[in-house]
């Protein structure tokens, strides 16, 4: 699209360049604001300081190259460069803090004059009361967290990038960071194609009823002849994981409520029995289950996988939800019972809203398990009910490996989990209960 073609520069150079710029541009504004300047100046100065440190890092790494060659280990030179460049940026920031002049009406003396604390504090709602050194440390911590998060996200980002690469870009060595994005991988993923000879290509190019996908494929001499299996697999995954999650959470909620609230004979034994279904590695029972499913006609059916995943998740959801329901004081329901509600109404109107955090957490975990499950899906399905996890590796198959299509398949596979977790994040993060019943 843009005809860009730049090979991957050294990873560590980029990473630490960004890191130091981030550190500089978050830590320096604190000093500048404290001394009464506009924080924007701080951001600019900080970014410059960071860039200087990044350049120092690059130069050090190059200078230490002979050492790395000598030791046959690049790690030592990288570590030395990190430490030295860190010392440089800290020294530069200290220099900025020491020698930037104070401008009127701000600064520590002004805070004290305004009746603020004599010694700067480490926590306050008022930013001018907080020790600037402490604020810089906070900024530094935030930068480290952001960069570590970035480091862990690199494989996912790389996958997302590969999904938009053309075949030559995807297999290029050295790998490309900046490339010409294309939808080729996604179209390959979604369609069945056949190769065309040059006469057919010419014939196709003459047609005017081609859509954008057809045109993309035509560039590599292929014609789309139908939808690929991937869409079907993804739909199967959604149906199976969604249904089994709903089933296992709702059944688990009722069972957990009963275990939590009523005197169930043999409660401890029953709970242990439920838990014991988790003690065996699932793979151990694939063959017996395969034989049972073949006899029962559940082989390669949606119902079969739904039942299996529900059974596996149920033990988990009963135990997890029981913990959450135990946390809800029984006076909540008793109040509702006295106020004129039946037990079922009290359950729906009081227990379920109060347990929403637990329900959300259980839903996410059950969904992730059912969504990612590979071994059973591989053994117990062939086509009709096959889910995405066993399908994606099968795309490697023989001949040319369509890395872009595989990456696109994995990317689309990620999206539902991200959506579910994102939609429920509010409940996942919220405290279990915020104190309407006072304990004590």
């Amino acid at each position, binding site marked *: 699209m843009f005809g860009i073609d730049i090979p991957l520069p050294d990873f560590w150079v980029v990473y630490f360049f960004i890191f130091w710029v981030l550190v500089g541009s978050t830590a320096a504004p604190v000093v500048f604001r404290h001394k009464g300047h506009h924080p924007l100046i701080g951001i600019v100065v900080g970014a410059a300081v960071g860039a200087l440190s990044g350049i120092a890092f690059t130069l050090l790494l190059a200078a230490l190259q002979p050492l790395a060659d000598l030791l046959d280990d690049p790690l030592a030179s990288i570590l030395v460069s990190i430490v030295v460049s860190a010392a440089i940026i800290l020294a530069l920031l200290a220099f900025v803090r020491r020698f930037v002049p104070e401008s009127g009406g701000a600064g520590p003396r002004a805070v004290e004059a305004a009746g603020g604390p004599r010694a700067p504090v480490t926590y306050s709602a008022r930013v001018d009361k907080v020790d600037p050194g402490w604020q810089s440390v906070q900024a530094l911590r935030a930068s480290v967290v952001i960069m570590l998060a970035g480091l862990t996200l690199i494989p996912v980002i790389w996958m997302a990038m590969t999904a938009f690469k053309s075949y030559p870009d995807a297999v290029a060595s050295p790998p490309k960071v900046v490339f010409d994005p294309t939808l080729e991988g996604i179209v390959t993923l979604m369609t069945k194609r056949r190769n065309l000879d040059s006469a057919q290509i010419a014939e196709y190019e003459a047609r005017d009823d081609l859509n954008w996908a057809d045109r993309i494929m035509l560039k590599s001499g292929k014609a789309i002849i139908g939808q690929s299996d991937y869409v079907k697999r993804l739909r199967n995954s959604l149906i199976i994981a969604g249904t089994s999650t709903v089933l296992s959470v709702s059944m688990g909620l009722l069972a957990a409520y009963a275990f939590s609230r009523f005197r169930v004979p043999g409660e401890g034994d029953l709970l242990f029995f439920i838990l014991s279904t988790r003690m065996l590695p699932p793979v151990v029972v694939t063959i017996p289950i395969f034989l049972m499913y073949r006899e029962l006609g559940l082989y390669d059916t949606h119902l079969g996988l739904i039942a299996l995943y529900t059974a596996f998740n149920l033990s988990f959801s009963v135990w997890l939800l029981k913990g959450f329901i135990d946390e809800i004081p029984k006076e909540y329901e008793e109040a509702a*019972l006295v106020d004129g509600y039946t037990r079922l109404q009290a359950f729906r109107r009081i227990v379920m809203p109060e347990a929403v955090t637990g329900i959300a957490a259980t839903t996410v975990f059950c969904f992730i398990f059912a969504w990612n499950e590979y071994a059973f899906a591989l053994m117990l399905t062939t086509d009709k009910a096959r889910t995405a996890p066993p399908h994606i590796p099968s795309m490697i198959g023989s001949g040319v490996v369509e890395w872009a299509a595989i990456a696109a398949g994995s990317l689309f596979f990620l999206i539902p989990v991200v959506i579910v977790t994102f939609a429920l994040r509010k409940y996942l993060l919220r405290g279990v209960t915020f104190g309407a019943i*006072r304990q004590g």
Partner: protein
Amino acid sequence: MATIELINVEKKFGDVHAVKPMNLTVRDGEFVVLLGPSGCGKTTTLRMISGLEAVTGGQILLNGRDVTWERPSDRDIAFVFQFFALYSHMTARENIAFPLQAQGERREVVRQRVEDVSRLLRMEHVLDVRPGALSGGDQQRVALARALVRHPAAFLMDEPLGALDADFRETMRAEIKRLHIDQHATTVYVTHDQIEAMAMGDRIVVMSDADVQQVGTPAEVYHDPANLFVARFIGSPGMNLVPGRYVRGVLHLAEGATYKVPDAWAPSLDAATRGDGDLILGFRPEAATVGVDSAIPATVYATDLHGGYTMLHLELGNNTIIHARTTREAKYAINTPVRFDLDPAMVRFFDPATEAAIIPEVRA
């Protein structure tokens, strides 16, 4: 409003009685306090009246209607829990409206009644706040409002002030008492705080060991305890109890001290001991007056000033410490020998074997 009758109501867990068969009638508009130490069965009794706990024997009548096996929701009672049990996912307004929604009231009616009750409790300003953000006192008001809003036949309250700070408890106590008078609502109130019970109750039911010890007005349980438990439990400090041997009109206390019993008591004590036997003398701290030529010798063990009065701790022989009230100005050095007298109208006697109070014949 309503009367509540308990007829031989009992609760057993296995073979253990949580509440021994008990009879109690709560009259229309009465404020009855169930008082006792923790684990005495008072909360279980309350929960049986509400229907949250099933009885294992006996009958519960509400306005003459047998509700023993009816569901809590069909009994037309309101329950205020110790820790309020406010729903944290609803605002105060929704909490208060919750019981009305169960009855399927129309929206305007619900709103009107929530406004009315919140005006009564002076809490309109907190209606749209969630319980988690409310102070203890406002949470208490929301809980009370939720009980009041339905105009139930009876209120059951399980230590509603137990979760509040000490200074605020006084205010809320007055508020609940005032509310009871205004609403003329039949109320059963559980507490372990005898001061609270004395202050609030029309009648007090003193419970211990799953059994009713005494039912009476605050004055009755204070001045005429039915047995040693009530004598010790009511009052702060409790009744002074001094063991002695009764021989023909004179009670011989430890170390040669004697107390001549009032003439009015002599016939009944003669009858109880057949003229010669062990007794326990009981009197309240305010019944003892220290004087120069008084009858009973003792030594000062300790004194403490309680603001309005001084509490003297006197040691009789035999390591028995008794408490006596004197004026604020009275000053006694420790170990001073003193003598004291008892107000003849305020002494009581107990049988050490049965622990029951001896009832004077003139009053019986």
